[in-house]
């Protein structure tokens, strides 16, 4: 029934999101080829979307706006740096050709270098890295120049029993050592304590990603510079440590997640 009848039959279901994969595919394919039916579908979708307004309105937590803008700001700075780098390197359309050629080359060489060097880098690093200096929101800047916006992945972090309401996200690029951590609802700490992020490899080695503090609402963030790309990090955890940080985790784990 790949005709306009299909839309007449399934259009409402499409707008409500109740179609199965095959029906959905058939509707989409027909609508792509039939502007009139696409218009009909769009009208159905408009009506369905109005249902969203029927729900009682809830004020989102302020941490949502802060987190969103922090993530966007990180993206922006990264994008600006990348753009500046591209402009300096290659003007105009040459970027495209260069990009295509270099992409394949980069993939090969980066993979090879990563594979060859990762183990030795991890093994020759001190058992634990010295903790990074604490950061505060006023210090916030962009990510490292190699951090690729297009490849950034968002990983959810979940609070442990010690901080069940805590949560956060870590934005990583598997091919880069820079990342951004944003955490919420972490319990406030006494002045002599801080939160410390640990990067855990598949072989259970732990490296410090830095220490950070949180505000009165438990909101905090941290720019991370890992000893290797985040492709080599299996999971992360956050513990409570002395303010200057610890060479290895000593306090209770409050937040963590797999990458």
């Amino acid at each position: 029934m790949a005709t306009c009848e299909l839309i007449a039959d399934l259009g409402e279901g499409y707008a409500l999101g109740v179609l199965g994969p095959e029906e959905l595919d058939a509707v989409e394919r027909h609508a792509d080829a039939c502007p009139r039916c696409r218009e009909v579908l769009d009208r159905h979708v408009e009506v369905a979307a109005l249902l969203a307004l029927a729900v009682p309105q809830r004020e989102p937590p302020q941490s949502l706006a802060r987190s969103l803008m922090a993530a966007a700001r990180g993206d922006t700075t990264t994008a600006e740096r990348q753009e500046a780098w591209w402009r300096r390197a290659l003007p105009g359309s040459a970027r495209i050709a260069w990009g295509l050629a270099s992409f394949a080359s980069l993939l090969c060489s980066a993979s090879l270098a990563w594979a060859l060097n990762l183990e030795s880098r991890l093994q020759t690093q001190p058992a634990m890295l010295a903790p990074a200096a604490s950061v505060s929101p006023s210090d916030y800047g962009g990510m490292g120049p190699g951090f690729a916006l297009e490849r950034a992945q968002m990983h959810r972090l979940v609070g442990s029993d010690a901080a069940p309401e805590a949560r956060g996200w870590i934005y990583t690029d598997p091919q880069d050592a820079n990342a951004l951590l944003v955490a919420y609802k972490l319990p406030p700490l006494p002045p002599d304590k801080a939160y410390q992020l640990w990067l855990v490899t598949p072989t259970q080695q732990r490296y410090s990603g830095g220490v950070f503090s949180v505000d009165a609402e438990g909101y905090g963030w941290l720019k991370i510079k890992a000893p290797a790309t985040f492709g080599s990090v299996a999971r992360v955890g956050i513990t409570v440590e002395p303010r200057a940080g610890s060479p290895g985790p000593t306090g209770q784990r409050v937040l963590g997640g797999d990458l």
Partner: protein
Amino acid sequence: MDYAQARDEELVERLADRDERALERLYERYGRAVYSLVLKMLREPAQAEEIAQEVFLKLWRRPSSYMAGRGTFSTWLLSVAHHRAVDELRARRHETLPLADGANGTPELVDEALDLADHAWLREQRTAVRQALATLPVSQRQAIEMAYFMGLTQREIADRLGEPLGTIKTRMRLGMQKLRGCLDGLNGHDADQAALGAVVAPVATSSGGAAEVHDGDV
């Protein structure tokens, strides 16, 4: 640029230039609606917050994914949020179904009191949608609400209600047709989006903690 008065489409265009104020403004306009929808569907504030952020970040990273010719920005944004929440509901479907708060597991919408914190425009829209839903026969409204707010497929709704699949499809189709008749023009393309955007209740950004508005706070 006057961000307060700018049309949604203008703000979306600014996103392509990495204009953070444009994103901030769009969030002020629609953050509450997106968060409220996802929260209503998922019932978990932390997850609602996560998905609401994802929705806006997706817009930030790919503003071109909104095509102005296909409908209003608010419709598109709420559809993105809805799809994402449905995905989440379906992913967890086999675990639990903690959604039921009305008879037969239907989310209660129509009888809820309006929130005074809303701005007039949003309140008017919501009143119209609720009134339109209230005009539907209970069986049609139930099918639509179970589909839209609970992310159930037609087959799942039929199984839950013990009705034939064809009956559910018919109820859904008739209900949506009636809704369209009632709501036609409410979210029309001719609406003055600048005016709409300017009056939608802004999301609080000052300090003082989240002020959750509860049903029936009137």
